[in-house]
């Protein structure tokens, strides 16, 4: 198994056995800043080689997917799960949006198998964070005047992860491969180590989330385990249709099948406060994230292999 996943396991086990191990919040912040910048910078440097015009239609298709996914999840939650409208909308928004950590683990997975992927995948990552959250808010409140769109768009477009990803992309794109050289030791060489520490902390957090699991009953567990697979399948089909490589298809599947736990919770807490935040966080962090990094990523890779083989 990839060592970074073992670090997640270590955190999970330590957390479940109530070890006193804890990473200070400041360190968690540092690690996530480093990961976001690294993903952005790497993508930007790659993009520097390439004509950009061709990716716009693809971006559009990806945005459409970001809008459709929550619309698929919402009825499941509302009618099968009998959750309130606000809770259904909120969870749908989380699952339509994406998880940067899952993406990073998938990148590490592909790297260690020397599988390339399209340079613009980090752009997809950025782009996919937002539409599902907007759709989720609309699902919760309709096009109500109550929603403070100003505050919301501020929250969305100026949130930490968007700013660092886009910032990294632009810087990488501007300085190109030679310019980035002196930054490599911190941002590129340490990438896996930083990811390992980050996953250690994620394991601890996931463990603390599972403690609130029983309160929420079987439906939410089932949802969090089962919805990633069809979503990832949608992602890989779209990837195929867009003519992506095996690596690219895998990553788009991962994006579709993963659930946000940074951008979505923050935005929904402000815009749909009546939704219970622990419900969506427990599902996304406590179940879907571990599921994806242990089982999802290899499975979605297999989707990609199979589909890519079919088409070409």
């Amino acid at each position: 198994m990839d060592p970074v996943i073992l670090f997640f396991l270590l955190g999970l086990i330590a957390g479940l056995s109530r070890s006193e191990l804890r990473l200070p919040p400041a360190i968690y912040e540092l690690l996530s800043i480093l990961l976001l910048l690294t993903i952005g910078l790497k993508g930007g440097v790659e993009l520097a080689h390439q004509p950009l015009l061709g990716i716009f239609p693809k971006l559009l298709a990806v945005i459409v997917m970001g809008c459709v996914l929550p619309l698929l999840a919402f009825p499941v939650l509302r009618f099968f799960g009998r959750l309130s409208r606000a809770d259904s909308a909120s969870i749908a928004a989380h699952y339509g949006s994406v998880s940067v950590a899952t993406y990073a683990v998938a990148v590490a997975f592909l790297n260690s198998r020397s599988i390339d992927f399209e340079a613009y995948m980090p752009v997809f990552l950025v782009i996919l964070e937002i539409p599902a959250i907007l759709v989720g808010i609309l699902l919760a409140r309709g096009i109500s005047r109550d929603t403070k769109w100003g505050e919301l768009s501020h929250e969305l477009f100026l949130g930490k992860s968007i700013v660092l990803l886009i910032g990294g992309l632009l810087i990488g794109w501007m300085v190109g491969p030679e310019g980035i050289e002196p930054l490599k030791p911190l941002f590129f060489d340490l990438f896996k180590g930083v990811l390992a520490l980050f996953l250690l902390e994620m394991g601890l957090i996931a463990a603390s989330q599972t403690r609130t699991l029983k309160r929420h009953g079987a439906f939410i567990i089932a949802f969090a385990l089962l919805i990633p697979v069809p979503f990832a399948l949608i992602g890989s089909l779209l990837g195929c249709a867009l003519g992506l490589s095996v690596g690219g298809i895998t990553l788009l599947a991962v994006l579709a099948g993963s659930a946000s736990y940074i951008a979505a919770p923050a935005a929904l807490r402000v815009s749909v406060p009546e939704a219970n935040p622990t419900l969506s966080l427990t599902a996304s962090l406590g179940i879907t994230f571990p599921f994806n990094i242990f089982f999802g990523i290899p499975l979605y890779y297999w989707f990609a292999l199979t589909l890519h083989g079919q088409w070409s």
Partner: protein
Amino acid sequence: MDSHQRKLLTIIAEAVLEHQLTQMLDKLGASGYTISDARGRGSRGVRNADWASSGNIRIEVVCGEALAISIEDYLFKNYYNNYAIIAFLTDVAVMRPEKF
């Protein structure tokens, strides 16, 4: 030196509200406020500050009774239903009444 009666309003709320609450205090006319980071447990479960947004903040406002009550009313109308938040009021004595 003389001392003057004022109220100390302490608000404990989820960290995500920091910006909104300070804006509200500015608008309602508080002469200042003090914030520190906290964690805790309440009716909405454990908030253990494992990462920034999972924690609480603790806001203190020294002010006159009227302002204290209108802040509490504002919290009641806008936050008590949906957010992890509590508030309580204490009597305090200050030396420079013109400041608060």
